[in-house]
């Protein structure tokens, strides 16, 4: 394996910031020389001048679509998109076909991820077929390394089943994650219910469809003592409820997506299904509240909810098109461009905090220090670029940011000691 020296950058991790050169050998960080060292020699030199060198990013919410929807994405193309976005670890969501609800399917996804340019881990469903009626073999899945269970794409509707799932999960030391949506309240809704849906004549789903399930699961976390991770929260009251639960000392965490931090329901005015997503884009007030939740520490991490869809699916009528948007290749730049946060805080939200939630901090998100696994990203925070859907590595093109100019670009990504992205180009 070729040795690498990352020269000229500012190292930023959970321990702080310092000017240092980083030597990588045999998959690990061999040396971190503060102030830099001209005599560090390696097979490959990665220029990090003007850049931040940080632990690789970790995404808790990636739809890789394999098995079953390979026309939209594969583990390989999704992992490449992730690497280009600075991620060294992504967590596959289980709403594949078949669902990741058994050891067999989980093994298949992990096998597909072996050799990919990103560390592909998998979540698994809480219920068989994500049908909400029978628990998956969580112990068997946990033995394969699954740390997070979710029926993402739908929420667990049955409160009693959710209670038992939480109790069972507590015994295994795994975390349940919830896509919060009361399906009876949200039924038929294709966008956020409010002034825009009313005007556009599009059936809406109210905020309360999300909020009643957040409220319920906080109660169940209190009841069972089990950890709950709330996925892609999108409303002011959801954030307020999680803040109160945390203040009470309950074991809850939550994530927010880049799109819920940057876009609103007004984007749906032209009926372009590229802006259809679930939970739906909300209002300015909700966006402000989710952003404030990030700044206040209520929101633990930014997760992409990268959801590729083939072009023909996104050319269906708005109410029939599937929800979801691409996220991996734009997430970091969106956060750096739009959030009024220091880069160290953005990296915390996208690297070490999410790594801790899925127990990946042994390999990802840890300090840039001698002996640690070499999973790193090198980010040029001043570089500007314009999002071109045709230039994305994802198999799909459904980014809502086409033509948007962003500040901050991933220059290099190092995975287990290998430079998988060099000068913003995927190496394989």
């Amino acid at each position, binding site marked *: 394996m070729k040795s690498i020296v990352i020269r000229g950058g500012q190292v930023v991790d959970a321990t702080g910031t310092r000017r240092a050169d980083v030597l990588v050998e045999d998959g690990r960080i061999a040396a971190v020389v503060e102030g830099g060292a001209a005599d560090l020699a390696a097979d490959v030199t990665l220029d990090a001048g003007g850049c931040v060198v940080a632990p690789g990013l970790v995404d808790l919410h990636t739809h890789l679509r394999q098995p079953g929807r390979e026309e939209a994405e594969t583990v390989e193309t999704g992992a490449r998109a992730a690497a280009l976005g600075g991620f060294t670890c992504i967590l596959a969501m289980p709403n594949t076909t078949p669902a990741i609800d058994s050891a067999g399917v989980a093994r298949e996804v992990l096998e597909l991820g072996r050799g990919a340019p990103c560390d592909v881990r998998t979540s698994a469903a809480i219920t068989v077929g994500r049908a909400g009626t029978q628990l998956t073999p969580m112990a068997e899945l946990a033995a394969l390394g699954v740390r997070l269970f979710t029926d993402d794409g739908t929420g667990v509707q049955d409160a009693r089943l959710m209670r038992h799932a939480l109790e069972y999960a507590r015994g295994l030391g795994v975390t349940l994650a919830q896509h919060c949506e009361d399906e009876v309240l949200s039924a038929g809704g294709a966008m956020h*219910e409010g002034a825009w849906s*009313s*005007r*556009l004549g*599009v059936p809406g789903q109210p905020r309360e469809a999300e909020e009643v399930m957040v409220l319920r699961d906080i109660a169940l976390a209190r009841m069972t003592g089990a950890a709950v991770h709330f996925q892609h929260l999108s409303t002011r009251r959801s954030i307020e409820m999680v803040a109160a639960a945390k203040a009470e000392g309950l074991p809850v965490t939550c994530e927010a997506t880049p799109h819920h931090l940057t876009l609103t329901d007004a984007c749906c005015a*032209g*009926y*372009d299904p590229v802006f259809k997503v679930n939970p739906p884009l909300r209002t300015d007030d909700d966006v402000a509240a989710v952003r404030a939740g990030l700044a206040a520490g209520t929101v633990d991490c930014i997760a992409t909810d990268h959801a590729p869809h083939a072009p023909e699916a996104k050319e269906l*009528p708005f109410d029939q098109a599937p929800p979801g948007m691409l996220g991996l290749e734009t997430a970091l730049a969106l956060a750096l461009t739009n959030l009024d946060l220091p880069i160290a805080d953005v990296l915390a939200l996208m690297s070490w905090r999410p790594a801790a939630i899925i127990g990946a901090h042994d390999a990802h998100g840890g300090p840039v220090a001698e002996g640690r696994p070499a999973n790193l990203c090198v980010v040029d925070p001043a570089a500007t670029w314009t999002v071109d859907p045709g230039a994305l590595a994802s198999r799909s093109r459904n980014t809502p940011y086409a033509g948007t100019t962003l500040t901050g670009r991933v220059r290099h990504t190092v995975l287990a000691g290998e430079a998988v992205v060099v000068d913003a180009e995927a190496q394989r």
Partner: protein
Amino acid sequence: MTGARRHLLGVADLSADEIEGLLTLTDSFVEVSRRRMPKVPALQGRTVTSLFYEDSTRTRLSFEQAAKRLSADTLSFSVSTSSVAKGESLRDTVETIEAMGVDAIVVRHRSAGVPHQIARWVSGSVVNAGDGWHEHPTQALLDCYTIREHLGGLGGRHVAIVGDINHSRVARSDVWAFTKLGAVVTLVAPPTLLPPSVEGWPVRVSHDLDAVLPTVDAVYLLRMQRERMAGSLVPSLREYTSCYGLTRRRVDLLGDKAIVMHPGPMNRGVEIAADVADLPRSVVVDQVRNGVAVRMAVLFDLLGSGRDLGGELDREGSR
């Protein structure tokens, strides 16, 4: 104003001047419609396709009649006998039609926004003939024309739109059209049938039809659909009629000159009593009649670019 806009997707995008312009243009085509030979060569050589993904009688026939009276060629597309039944996508269908050389696509679809999507894919004109709950702009134009015909204009007039506002594309178009022309609009419905938010809508809202009727110049009744009961939006059609139906008793609350309107098809005995629908103050038949002239005006406005209307109207159409 002819030729200024390529599509007619909604009334919300039109200015008051544009609406007035279309109504003035409609006057000319009303005159044509009264002729012994009600046909002009204004759109000779142009092709208009109607692409109806949802059942319709009056709108579809009205557009076809309008296109024919303008001497345009018409192609008609029926979902049940087309490749759509074989699973062809909306975009493929539209691109196939366009490849045959059409100048305008008149589209009706059950999903809001489909005309907007099609407009992004084609180089010709798109006319919205009703999209989901969103808009039905030619209905609003013919409603304005009919009100103008009977009441002399919209300015300062009070119109009550009664019934299932939330699920009504007619209401969403009429609100903009009536208010842009200066009318005061009151939406009358139980809260379950109002949009979740009317923030930014230039309307008043009432749940008391009896209180509103004495103050209106026109009462516009919307079709009440049986399926709304399944969604627990109203307890029963009987209760709906007792609260919001235009019964014979309620007609007596109207001023002498107030007119009664309905976009059709009517549920006699539900939102409108059978004998009320046939009263002289009911202008439902005028609405249908004016629909043809209004749609002639819309098609001529979009497709007649560069053609002199006066000259076209002086010539008789070929047989």
